[in-house]
Every structure is written in structure tokens, then in C-alpha cells.
């Protein structure tokens, strides 16, 4: 399988290939279906993606620090 000529070995290659494609760019995907090579051509669209970021609160309490540490600390 290839995306815009880039060989796809695993999911990380797909991610990298898609990231390199800008909105409305031409995309060519080469795959094999039923032992036959198939080329799919299309134009990339766009959609509005929601991104979330976790930020630290401005004045964390001791309890907040205990809870955050507790999440990631193995049980004693």
C-alpha cells in the first residue's frame, strides 16, 4: 500500500502520510484488492478537529497534588 508514493508498513506511516497532506491537496492511494492493483484518487477535505489540553490549575492544593501523585503511583 502507498499513500502519495509513500510505502505504508504500519499505522505510524499512515499518520505521517496524512499529516503531510494539506487541505484540498490531491491524494493518490495504491492498494491491492483481490490480487489486483487499484489506484484511488481524491482530494483531501477538512474538518474542524477539537483539541484538548490539560493545564495545571493556578494554585494547586496539597490534596490536588496528592491525588495526581496517587493516580500514577503503584499501590503500596
Amino acid at each position, binding site marked *: 500500500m502507498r499513500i502519495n508514493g509513500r510505502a505504508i*508498513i504500519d499505522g505510524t506511516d499512515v499518520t505521517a502520510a496524512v499529516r503531510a497532506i494539506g487541505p484540498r*491537496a490531491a491524494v493518490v492511494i495504491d492498494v491491492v484488492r483481490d490480487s489486483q492493483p487499484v489506484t484511488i484518487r481524491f482530494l483531501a477535505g477538512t474538518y*474542524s*478537529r*477539537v*483539541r*484538548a489540553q490539560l493545564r495545571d490549575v493556578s494554585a494547586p492544593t496539597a490534596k490536588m497534588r496528592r*491525588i495526581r501523585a496517587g*493516580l500514577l503511583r503503584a499501590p503500596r
Partner: protein
Amino acid sequence: MLLVLLLALQNSTPELYYSVTVPTDRSAYLVEVQITNPPSPSRLVIPNWAPGAYRLMDSWQNIRAVAAVSGAGDPLPVHQDSPISWVIDSKGNARITVRYTAGLRDSVQWRRPNNRWFLRASSGVVDGPRTFMYLDGWKQAPARVTFQVPQGWRIATGLVPTTIDSTIFAAPNYDVLIDSPTLLGHFLTYHFSAAGTPHRAVVDLGETRAYAPAVFVDMLRRISTTAIGIFGRAPYKDYTYIFVGGRGGGLEHLNSTTIGVTTETLARYPRGAEAVSAHEFFHAWNVKRIRPVELGPFDYEHEVRTVNLWWSEGVTDYYADVILARAGLDSPEDFAQGIATSIGNYRGNPARLRVSPERSSWTAWDSPAVNDSYVISYYLQGQLLGLLLDLAIRDSTDNQKSLDDAMRYLFAHYAGERGFTRDELVGAVDSATGGHDFTEFWRLYVSGTNEIPWNDYLRAAGWEVVFTNASTADALVKTSWCASTGAPSSTAPT
């Protein structure tokens, strides 16, 4: 008199002895089932689905050449009474033998290594649900299986060997037999101890060499030790990680897992399978022992629905994140970033306000059409609900209790003969956390589709979430496409 009756009953109990042979041409597994004291008639069934993979898989398409003979070798009548079952007239014989082949018809696909079921020149994986038929009415009968493999091939399975270096293995019943995938062939073996319990990783990379095995094994040891630490003990005598050099994904089993990972991935990053390894390993508790009441003993002929897959799969995903961070494989920043990514994916999916976690669990078997084509993963929903519950429990108990306590409570109360119902799950979380009432939480966010007030929960750990919108290209976009061997272009969502 009682003893005589018991002996008579014991003598009439069917005994099943399976044999799986790898033929020279590798075209399919040759399967033989020898049944002593067969019922008359004897109905043999190939499962329609496999626990852990909640979809019908049309196994019957892979079964061919079903035939039966008596102990003396005389042919017995066989007729197929459904796509997945065959009825044999045992004609009063004390022993019958049923033979069939099990393998994909697509020979290219059949030889391609993957984490479920294949057979190629140097190795193969025997997937129980697609290989072993059960004797209807006698799934609880003990079974033995012999693997007849080419010279030099080895065998790795979670089943109990009957002797050292045996090719014969025992299972207390059919459920255990098919919950023990078996790797056959040439493969690498790494033994290690985690919390004093023997573990091993068997790795089938084909002709490829091993990459940084010390890093790889250290990853598995840390995952195993950390997960066992949550519960205090391992629920098995030994555990086998089965890695095959194929496509991604994994499937949980009673004391083993099969994980597909490309050799290229292992070459680039020996810890490339850490997330799936942690997820599948945590399943050794959550779903293989702590289970919804519907998931066992299994009805293999029909789909089995539960509203609690979000817990069994999604909370397992949350614990995979937790385990990797606690094991030092991911940093606290990695953990927070992973959570943020999941919250963003959830918030960006309009289905979150249409399909509740219980609904997405219940409809796992169905077309998206049953939910008006709104689709949201119960993995994602459960992962985030696990975080929210953990934070809520810690907040209400000043960090004295956590979701770990709920897990331990469930393991103590619902890991035996009977699993938990929806209400018992709520009650278990309540009980483990000193009586805090989670009924309203379930109503709003588990049975319901209310918008989650993220910061109300995240602040307990000193976080707040900030959302932004970004225009981006993605595979899930409206495009016009055409295939060079197909029809002219048309506009269609892909």
C-alpha cells in the same frame, strides 16, 4: 449402591480427545475429535463468535470435509442441521471419531501471520473458536488435545501440558480449551518472573532477527509486575504473551494473549507494543475474571449482549495508561497528553450526546444504523469514565480510596462462577469507596448522554481542560474518488 450409580454415571460421561495436525501443504489444520461415550445423536458445533471479539465470524465457512467413523472405522451418517452444526448418528458405538479441516479458503490470507489464526511454512496460530467444535450439551466435559507438528516445531499455549515437553495438553472444559490460542512452529522464547509468578513471551518473527530483546522483555516484566501489584496476586499459575509478526491488535485470554505487531515496528521501537500489551494483560483480571454476568458460560451459537463493555474494554484502556505510567514506561506528561487526546477525540464526536456508553456496549454487534449512524467507541467512553471515577473516588475520600479499590472489590466478589450485573457494578463501586453513591453518575454519564463537566472532575488532580478547534485534513473527510479499475469518480464519504 450410590458408588455404583456414580461409577455408572461417570462411565457414561462423554470424553473428548482432540488432535490438530499441521499437514505438509499447510492448506488447513486437520482436526480430529475422538468422543468416548458419545450421546446419540451427537451434535458438534463450531462457535459463531469468539469471546473478546464481539461480532459474528462465520466460522462455518472455514470448516470442510466433515466425516465421522465408528471405533471400528465404519462410516457414520453426518448431516448438517445448521450452518455451524453437524449431527452424527453414533449408532450406539462406545467411541466415534469426527474429522474435518479448519482453515481460511483464501490461501494468501491464510498464510499471512496475524494475531488470530494462520498457518504458513514456518509457524501457525491455532485459534480455538475457529478450530475446535464442541459437543452440544457437554461443553463442561474435560478435554485433551494433541498437536501433531512438523519435526523441529515447538508449541506454546496457556493450556496445561500433560508431561514435560508434551505435545498433549489438557483443559478442564471447552471454554478453557478455546480460550488458549496455541503458537506452533519456530519462535523465540523469553522467560521472566513477575511478582514471583512465571511469565514468558514467545515471539514469532518469521525469518527476522530479534530486536533489542532486553528492552522488550523489560517492558513486559514492568507491565506484568505493575498490574499484579494492583490486585496483590496473579490469578493464574503462569502467563504467556504470544507475539506474531503480523498486523496490529491483540486478544485477551485466560492466561495468555495474542498480539500482532509488525517486525518493522519492533525494529524501530522495541516498546512499540506496550499499550496493547498492557491492555491485554489487564484483561487477565478485567473481563477474563471480573466479568459482566452475560459473558460466561458462553452461548457460542448466538450473539451475547451486555451493557457493560465500556467497563470491560474501556476501563481496561484506562488501566493500560495507568499501568504504563506507574511502571515508568510512560512519563506523567505522556499520561496527561494521552488523556487530553482522548478528551479531545470524545469532545469532537457528536455521537457522545446521542449514544451512551451502555448503548454503545449493547449495540456492539449491530450496524451503526441502529444508532442513526452515530458511532462512538465504548473503549473511548470507558477509558474516560474510568478516569472520572478514579478522580471522583479519590476526591471524595481524600485520596484514601481509588478505582483500584473498586477493582479489588470486584475481583473478590465477581470473579468466580457468576459475573456482575449493571446494578451490582454500581453497588461494587459504592461499596469499595466507603459508601459514596454513584447512582447519579451512572444515570448521567453511563446510561445517559449528558455532557461531561470535565473541570468538575479534573480539578481534583489539579488539572483543567482547554478546548481549541483546528481545521485539519483527515481520512474521514468528504472526497471525490475513483479507482483505476473501477467506475468513474463519484462523490462519497470515505
